[in-house]
């Protein structure tokens, strides 16, 4: 996947000379997850800028650069580090278009790996989608496959809105064949992974793979789950989701986000509000535990949702 992200980034940088990258170790080092490998050698040190360790300030710099004509892509070495940039992301990235009365656009992309990895410890394993959710004026997307990683990267760079692109630490080494032709995906649409009849399972990012693993087991047991990767965490694609709910009447949300105030919580509310009449059972939301990610492997495993839990939940819902 990291190559797909790089390809997407490179194609956009070729296409528009105003696209530039800011981040720690993105230049000479090639990026901690190799997403920007080789780009500094190709485009120069100014276009692929190695910043000092000052997240808040270089994110602010990206905002200033975006306001004055450039299209920066900010890489957080880990999404958790972007908490330090929260002031700039929330107040400036999100709000300046509005407070300036529409005069300035902030076409930045803020991206980086997040999520629970392999025993990386609490601070490097944060699930921050919920933290950014309420910021007005930004869009959140999460990529999950090699195909949608490249497409979403390109779409995010081309968008006039500030976009936060959530990648996942454990997905960078995924391999997949992708088209040679250029393609750009829509930032606001969800992806139908597996059509089905019995139940709608909504998921995103790494949990998609846990869901698909659970789906294999479920199919063997005779269930027919419909799996949708929502991709767009904010705003929700209520059309795709709604159509699915109208068909299956049962919803299970599987996410890696924190339970409290998470993406799942918002999604539950949105579905209840809009499609209440179509539901045969209450919406079940499986999120990760509201705990700092423990270091110990066994504890870490039980922090996130496992396929067996998904199977059990589906069986419960479909009774």
């Amino acid at each position, binding site marked *: 996947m990291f190559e797909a992200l790089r390809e997407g980034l490179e194609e956009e940088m070729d296409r528009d*000379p*105003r696209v*530039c990258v800011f981040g720690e170790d993105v230049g000479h080092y090639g990026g901690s997850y190799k997403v920007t490998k080789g780009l500094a050698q190709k485009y*120069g040190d*100014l*276009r692929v800028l190695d*910043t*000092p360790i*000052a997240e*808040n*300030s*270089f*994110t*602010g*710099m*990206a*905002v*200033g*650069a*975006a*306001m*004055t*004509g*450039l299209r920066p892509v900010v890489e957080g070495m880990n999404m958790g580090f972007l908490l330090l940039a929260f*002031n*700039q992301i929330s*107040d*400036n990235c999100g709000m*300046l*278009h*509005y*407070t*300036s*009365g*529409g*005069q*300035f*656009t*902030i*076409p930045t992309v803020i991206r980086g790996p997040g999520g629970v990895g392999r025993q990386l410890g609490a601070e490097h394993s944060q699930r921050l989608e919920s933290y950014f959710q309420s910021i*007005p*004026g930004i*869009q959140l997307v999460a990529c999950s496959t090699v195909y949608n990683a490249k497409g979403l990267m390109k779409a995010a760079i081309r*968008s*006039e*809105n500030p976009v936060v692109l959530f990648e996942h630490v454990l997905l960078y080494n995924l391999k997949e064949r992708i088209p040679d032709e250029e393609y750009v995906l829509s*930032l*606001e*649409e969800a992806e139908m992974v597996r059509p089905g009849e019995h139940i709608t399972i909504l998921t995103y990012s790494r949990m998609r793979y846990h869901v698909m693993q659970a789906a294999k087991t479920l199919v063997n047991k005779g269930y027919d789950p419909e799996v949708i990767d929502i991709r*767009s965490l*904010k*705003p*929700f*694609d*209520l*059309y*795709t989701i*709604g159509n699915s709910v109208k068909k299956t009447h049962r919803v299970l949300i599987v996410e890696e986000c924190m339970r409290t105030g998470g993406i799942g919580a918002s999604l539950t509310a949105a579905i209840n509000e*809009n*499609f209440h009449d179509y539901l045969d059972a209450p919406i079940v939301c499986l999120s990760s535990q509201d705990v700092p990610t423990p270091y110990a492997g066994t504890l870490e495993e039980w922090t996130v949702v496992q396929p067996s839990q998904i199977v059990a939940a589906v069986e419960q819902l479909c009774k």
Partner: protein
Amino acid sequence: MACSATAQIIQPLSINSARSVDNSDACTKTLSPSSFLGSTPRINKKLFAVNKSISPLARRPTTVFAVSSDVVKEKKLKSNSSLSNLLITKKEGLELYEDMYLGRAFEDMCAQMYYRGKMFGFVHLYNGQEAVSTGFIKLLKKEDYVVSTYRDHVHSLSKGVPAREVMSELFGKTTGCCRGQGGSMHMFSKEHNVLGGFAFIGEGIPVATGAAFTSKYKREVLKEDCDEVALAFFGDGTCNNGQFFECLNMAALWKLPIVFVVENNLWAIGMSHVRATSDPQIWKKGPAFGMPGIHVDGMDVLKVREVAKEAIDRARRGEGPTLVECETYRFRGHSLADPDELRDPAEKAHYATRDPITALKKYMAENKLVSEAELKAIDKKIDELVEDAVEFADKSPVPARSQLLENVFADPRGFGIGPNGKYRCEDPKFTEGTAQV
């Protein structure tokens, strides 16, 4: 001020170190090391009662150093020909006077309007600090960028934003520069390159750094003919904030065309600068990052202008950033909601005698640059302009509900796809401001 062309090496000036400085040209304040500065509120009296201080020289062999503006003024006076050894021409003088008077008149009108209930919220007035805004901004081109804080009305006016638009914005009308959506603390103008107006202190400094980065990028990557400069204005309180230091580092590192202008008015609401800062001499923080740090008397527009010229030219030439500390003072409270009881009346009285507008008038009168009548004409013109701005703002319409959801996203598809398959922004209720998003 000699700046050599190579890297960051600046040759020290040979200055007569025994020069005594009189009270109204205070450059630095020597602080007695034994007093605990945070202890009593009255400590500030000692500060400006000083002044047989010596101008800050390079005492150690560093590559960059700080210069007192007196030196610049004197040098210029000596080096110019005897024919015109004044710092400004008549035209420039009138321009500076007009700009400062506009700033003062506008802010006074803001206070009036606030107490009459025409504007609300937090309004921070700039009275007393006009010399800094005028001194710097009048040297800029239209393409140069200005970034300010919440005390941004006068910066916007100096940069060229029409008084009508600023006043409308303060009244919250659609004809305001930000359509009424920003308010006092968020003045933006794409046309005049005013990049805000920020409510949190320090927030704007990275934005200014980014604008300076764009200028460098345009020159070096896009190969455009670009020598735009960014100015970041902020106060003494901000100089203890992380973003300030982070940006000093990055600007010096990449030699960005930016000037960091500190409007040191000694107070951060009720927090005195010396109670909050371990080393109150802010200009010193420049050389620590590898850029010149300059202290200037911010109540004297001519001194500010001389220093500004050099700093801005330096940035334009690609030699990198400068940190300029302007010693100034705000005559009113922090905001219109601040009772301003903490500051010593003697301190206020002292600075009132150094009113920048009066000082400029005096200079121009002494040097027979302009006549009293010309100044009065300007006063009248500005008073009428401000009155007109108020009238315009008064008559302007308030934003309709339809404006609520506009401008949240540059691309309104960001509101997403609704249950009916259409983008929410295509919902007719969207333009009414009542759509569900």
